Each structure stands twice: as structure tokens, then as C-alpha cells.
């Protein structure tokens, strides 16, 4: 018999956190800074709206594109917030989170061998999704010296005749980096000049601190070549509802919908109903949660710097990405030893790409007392292993 598993999968490394997950799950008393989701439950008015819809019998499929009411609300939100015009009938698609949106986007635009330029470190799914689509991920190193921003010149240097798209995600998981409007405009120039598409993952777009969110598609002259991916998971604490959306020109959305209708059919209806409530009335709660993250962010970043894990100021998402080089350990070694000795879980930076080496991801979407206890334990740990 030939191999049972498709050869394509051999090119994709297993997730970098599997063994940590098993280890953390087997231990008690662990403070986890290793999660990638809000610690708040979904605001009650949103949950209640979904419960009501279930009671009313809304338990069926929706149209492949998603409920028209939700698409209209999203179109109106994008218009009001970023002055972007998307036709809810042809230019918006409701997806099962941004995760599905990303998969659809790369599958819709890549032919085998097409290259996608993306930052390193970056969210774990970016290179894998490109590989699943038989594309080639091309990583652009970024570092804390430049606040983990993607430099346009570095992107340009990696463009070949096979380059099809640039894939960005700011505010960024795992670094918490944001790209200011000027930084993004430089990327937009490169995309225009070299006729490239841009996939912009903006799931964390509402979670920014001391700066304004920027929507890449709203920059001059790039809307047509941009696939905007966003959703409700992070800002509205709705990770488990699995609702995201893609906004792009009609040909792209039609191509993505073609895949979506055969592979996912539609996003879950209860999630879509909840998302309608979130986008219509969720802003005050979203703002309250963002303010809470901001407070914890300040405590986390100050605390990490105070104990000798230098950390640039993350202005988005809910992650800090401190350097751990003062301990002389690799990221994996640090994460594993910290977990075993002090029962604090962090994610090694290398899970997000080679350039994550020397860093760990610390999520501050947890209670202030957890953050402070974690910092106390980490301080003890760093003191023990510090190489002066």
C-alpha cells in the first residue's frame, strides 16, 4: 500500500506547542500566559441574542455568503469606520473565523509554486495555509530593533517573478506589533508597484492602545488588490462562535465563495446572529475590555522590563514578546524550564518562525493577580539563570 497520509503534509511542520500543551495539561497550579484568546466571556447581550434565536428555531443553514443582515451591518461598519465601500451582496463573505478566511484567500489566488511574502515571526497559520495551497511562503525577518514591523524594503528585496501576494497581520500575534499608517503605506506602494495582492488579517484591529486602528484596504489605490480578513473573536470575546469575514472585490469573493460553499457551506447561524448583535450594540463592552487589556498591558510590559526581560512596547493585540536572551537559553528551553520550575506557561517565539528565537509570547488576557504572580515567579527564574 502507498503511504496513507498525503505527501503534501510532510512539508508542514507539526505545531510548535503540542508538547507544551500536553505538559501544561498534566500539571496543576499553572499560570498560563500561553492562551490566544480573551479571558472575558462573550458579553451577555450577545450570548442572550443567540439563545433567543435558538429558541425561535434559527438552527438551520444560512446562505453560503452568510446572513445578508450581517453582511449589511459589516458593510455599514466598514463605511462608517474606514470610509470603505463594499457591496454586501458581492463583496463580503462570512467565514468560520479568520482562520477559514485565510485558507480561502490563499487557495483562491495561489497556483502551485506561487510565492507569498510574510513576516517572521507571524501567526502560525500563515505559512501552513500557504503550503496547503501548494504555495511557497517567503519569510521576511523582523526584529524588536524595529518593533517587529515589516519593512517595505525587505519585502521588495524578496520579490521574484513568482511572487503573488504579501500576507500581513497587524496588530500582530505573537509580537503585539502594530504598523502605523505610514508603515502600511510603504507596503501599499510596494504592492502597487509590483502588482501584488495583499491579504491583510485584521482580527486584532480594534485592540490597539495609544494609536488608531488602520485598515490596509483604506489606503489609497490598494482596495482592489486587497483581501481584508477580520472578525469578531478578539474584540468581542467571541472566539468559540467562529465568525469572521472577508471583504474584497467581487471576483475574489466569488472565487473564495466557490471553495467555501463546497468545504464549509456556511458559518454557524447562531454565531452569525450573535455577530449581528455584537456589531450593532457591542461597542461599549468591546471598549471596556480593550481598556482593561490596556491596563494589564502596562503592568505586564513594565514588569517584564523590570525583571530583566526586555520588552518593546506592544501597541496592539494582547501579547507581549519579551527577549529572553539574558538567560542564555533558547526560547524552547526557556519555556520548558519556566514551566517545569515555576509553573508559568508561555509560548516559545520559535513557534511563530525562526526570527522568534530569543523571545517568548506572554498573553496578558488574564487577571491582574495572575499577571503579577506570573511576574513574581518569572523574576525568581530569571534571577537564577541570568547571565550578567
Amino acid at each position, binding site marked *: 500500500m502507498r503511504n496513507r497520509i498525503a505527501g503534501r503534509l510532510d512539508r508542514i511542520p507539526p*505545531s510548535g*506547542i503540542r508538547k*507544551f*500543551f500536553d505538559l*501544561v*495539561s498534566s500539571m496543576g497550579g*499553572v499560570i*498560563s500566559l*500561553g*492562551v*490566544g*484568546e480573551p*479571558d472575558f*466571556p462573550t458579553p451577555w447581550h450577545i450570548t442572550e441574542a443567540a439563545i433567543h434565536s435558538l429558541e425561535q428555531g434559527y438552527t438551520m443553514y444560512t446562505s453560503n455568503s452568510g446572513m445578508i443582515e450581517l453582511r449589511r451591518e459589516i458593510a455599514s461598519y466598514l463605511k462608517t469606520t474606514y470610509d470603505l465601500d463594499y457591496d454586501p451582496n458581492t463583496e463580503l463573505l462570512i467565514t468560520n473565523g479568520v482562520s477559514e478566511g485565510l485558507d480561502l484567500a490563499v487557495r483562491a489566488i495561489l497556483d502551485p509554486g506561487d510565492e507569498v511574502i510574510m513576516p517572521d515571526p507571524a*501567526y*502560525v*497559520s500563515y505559512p501552513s495555509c500557504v503550503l496547503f495551497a501548494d504555495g511557497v511562503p517567503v519569510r521576511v525577518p523582523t526584529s524588536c530593533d524595529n518593533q517587529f514591523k515589516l519593512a517595505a524594503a525587505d519585502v521588495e528585496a524578496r520579490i521574484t517573478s513568482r511572487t503573488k501576494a504579501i500576507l500581513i497581520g497587524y496588530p500582530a*500575534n505573537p509580537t503585539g506589533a502594530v504598523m502605523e499608517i505610514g508603515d502600511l503605506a510603504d507596503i501599499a506602494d510596494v504592492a502597487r508597484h509590483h502588482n501584488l495582492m495583499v491579504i491583510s488579517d485584521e482580527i486584532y484591529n480594534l485592540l490597539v492602545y495609544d494609536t488608531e486602528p488602520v485598515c490596509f484596504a483604506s489606503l489609497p489605490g490598494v482596495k482592489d488588490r486587497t483581501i481584508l480578513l477580520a472578525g469578531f473573536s478578539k474584540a468581542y470575546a467571541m472566539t468559540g462562535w467562529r465568525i469572521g469575514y472577508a471583504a474584497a472585490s467581487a471576483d475574489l469573493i466569488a472565487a473564495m465563495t466557490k471553495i467555501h460553499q463546497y468545504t464549509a457551506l456556511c458559518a454557524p447561524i447562531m454565531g452569525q446572529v450573535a455577530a449581528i448583535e455584537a456589531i450593532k450594540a457591542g461597542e461599549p463592552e468591546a471598549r471596556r475590555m480593550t481598556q482593561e487589556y490596556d*491596563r*494589564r498591558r*502596562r*503592568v505586564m510590559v*513594565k*514588569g517584564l522590563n523590570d525583571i530583566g526581560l526586555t520588552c518593546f512596547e506592544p501597541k496592539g493585540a494582547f501579547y507581549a514578546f519579551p527577549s529572553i536572551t539574558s538567560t542564555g537559553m533558547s526560547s524552547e528551553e526557556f519555556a520548558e524550564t519556566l514551566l517545569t520550575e515555576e509553573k508559568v*506557561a508561555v*509560548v516559545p517565539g520559535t*513557534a511563530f518562525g525562526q526570527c522568534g528565537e530569543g523571545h517568548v509570547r506572554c498573553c496578558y488576557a*488574564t487577571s*491582574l493577580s495572575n499577571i*503579577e504572580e506570573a511576574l513574581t515567579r518569572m523574576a525568581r527564574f530569571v534571577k537564577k539563570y541570568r547571565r550578567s
Partner: protein
Amino acid sequence: MRQIFDILANDARVTPEQVAAMTGLSEAEVRSTIEEAEKDRTIVKYKTIINWEKLGNEPVMALIEIRLQPQRDVGFDAAAARIYRYPQVRFAYLVSGTYDLAVLVEGKSLHEVGAFVSEKLAPLEGVQGTATHFLLKRYKEDGEVLEGGEEDKRLPLTM
């Protein structure tokens, strides 16, 4: 500044140093703001929410609706003061609607609360009538759900 109070209203035990870290204000600034607020009674008191049921000696509580006769020049304030000065009265609010004053009265027993209402509150000058509602169960106190608690249901590691 407002942030300092938001933080303390949610958790009185947060130290000025922590408030400073959370807000980006200087510790000195936080300290002086708090001191000032304590002095002018913007911050009235720091207290604790306790689920007495767990201790097995939950006090008996009753919500009392009181209809008051307003008085010339002082409206309801004088009559309200005569009521809220009793230590048994835990909360007192002037409200709109079919009655005027809503008070929460605490006592050791039904009898004690009943006696307080009939012997102290009802006969007061200006009190036109009362309706007593004994509390059967406390679900939520000052924004905090008492039972259950919100344990972390998230997976310990996710990307």
C-alpha cells in the same frame, strides 16, 4: 484621573503603585489624587463584598418601599435623613414612581426587621405608608455574581 476611580471601584486593594503601572500615571500623582478623594469623601469608604450565606449566618434583609410626605423647603431630605440614620438601614435611595424612598433594612431575624419597620419606620412623622419585601435570595451584589464564580474555561495553550 477617572481611571484611578474606575480601578479602585472594581478592586479596592489595588495599590497606588499598581494603579500607576496600569494607567501610566506617576505613583505620586495617583497617591495625591487618592488622598484628596479620601479627604473630600469622593472615596467614601473601602469595603468588602461577602457572601454571608457561606458563613451560615446570613442576615435577614428586607426592601422597604416608603411613601413620604414632602415638606416645605426641604422636600424629602429631612424625612429621609431621619430614616437613613438608623444603622439597620443599609441602602437608602430616593426614587421616582409609586413610592418615594427605597431602603434596604438588615436584621438578625424576621422578627427584628418586622419590629424595626412597624415600630421605628412606619410611625415616623412624614411616613405615609410602607411595603416590606423580605429578600429570599441574593444573586448579585454590587455588580458581582455571588454563586459559582467564573473559573477559566479556556484551553491552557492556544495559538
